């Protein structure tokens, strides 16, 4: 049986891995069961069982860079889940901006209205997160340098550079349809990041 003091040791160790609440609870439960079983079935002391559990989790709890374009370090187990979430965000944003692009071809005025609507929703979500969810300026800053957005920015810069090769008129480049596609994509990413943040789901914000 694991004592309260021993449980505190496990909690402190897992806290140092900065796991999100969803994963933390599961990993802690697993640790408790694993250690308890090693103590009961194999007659190990708490320290021995704790060490064995840490060794068996070594790879998954190792701190690694969250993304190629991020300096944040998170546990590998968290990274796998976060990267999965990123892929979903990217897919939804691609589908959404693709649909927006089609709308732009059909009715540019309606597309303009959609962009305004998205911007209003973005402001509303930002305010909601700031007022109700304790979203700080630092969160906003990290959102602006979020790996998913940095990727979009880099791709946008490449388009801008290619556009400049074709025409030296910056206004013309800004008016290119592909620029609007990028803006819609970036806005769709930000809206999802704000949504997940409001739900306290880890998306590195």
């Amino acid at each position, binding site marked *: 049986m694991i004592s309260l003091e021993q449980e505190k040791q496990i909690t402190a160790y897992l806290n140092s891995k900065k796991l999100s609440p969803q994963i933390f609870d599961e990993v802690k439960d697993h640790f408790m069961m694993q250690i308890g079983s090693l103590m009961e079935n194999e007659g190990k002391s708490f320290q021995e069982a704790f060490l064995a559990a840490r060794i068996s989790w070594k790879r*998954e709890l190792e701190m690694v860079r969250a993304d190629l374009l991020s300096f944040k370090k998170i546990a590998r187990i968290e990274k796998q889940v976060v990267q*999965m979430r990123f892929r979903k965000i990217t897919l939804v944003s691609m589908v959404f901006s693709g649909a927006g692009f089609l709308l732009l071809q059909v009715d540019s005025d309606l597309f303009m209205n959609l962009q305004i609507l998205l911007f209003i929703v973005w402001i509303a979500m930002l305010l909601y997160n700031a007022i109700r969810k304790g979203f700080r300026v630092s969160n906003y800053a990290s959102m602006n340098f979020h790996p998913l957005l940095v990727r979009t920015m880099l791709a946008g810069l490449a388009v801008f550079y290619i556009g400049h090769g074709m025409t030296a008129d910056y206004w013309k480049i800004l008016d290119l349809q592909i620029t609007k596609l990028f803006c819609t994509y970036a806005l769709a990413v930000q809206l999802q990041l704000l949504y997940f943040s409001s739900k306290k789901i880890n998306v590195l914000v």
Partner: protein
Amino acid sequence: MYGYQITQRAKELTQGELEMTEGALYPLLHKLEAEGMITSEIQKINGRDRKYYLLTDKGKKQQVTQEEEMKSYLFNLSTIFNI
């Protein structure tokens, strides 16, 4: 079933042959949950939260398909080696 229970059950069924990496299981469970193959519910056990996973209807259908595929694969493999 919950995470630890799944690893133990896998060990028990394979008589220790299949030893799952403890932490590798959770990203997989989260992926299956996101795909709607399994669903989860949290229960308080001994004062701490425990997440139980259950197969959804979609997951059950997928399980049948995967089992059939695996059986067919093993059958083909054994046929080849028995020639």
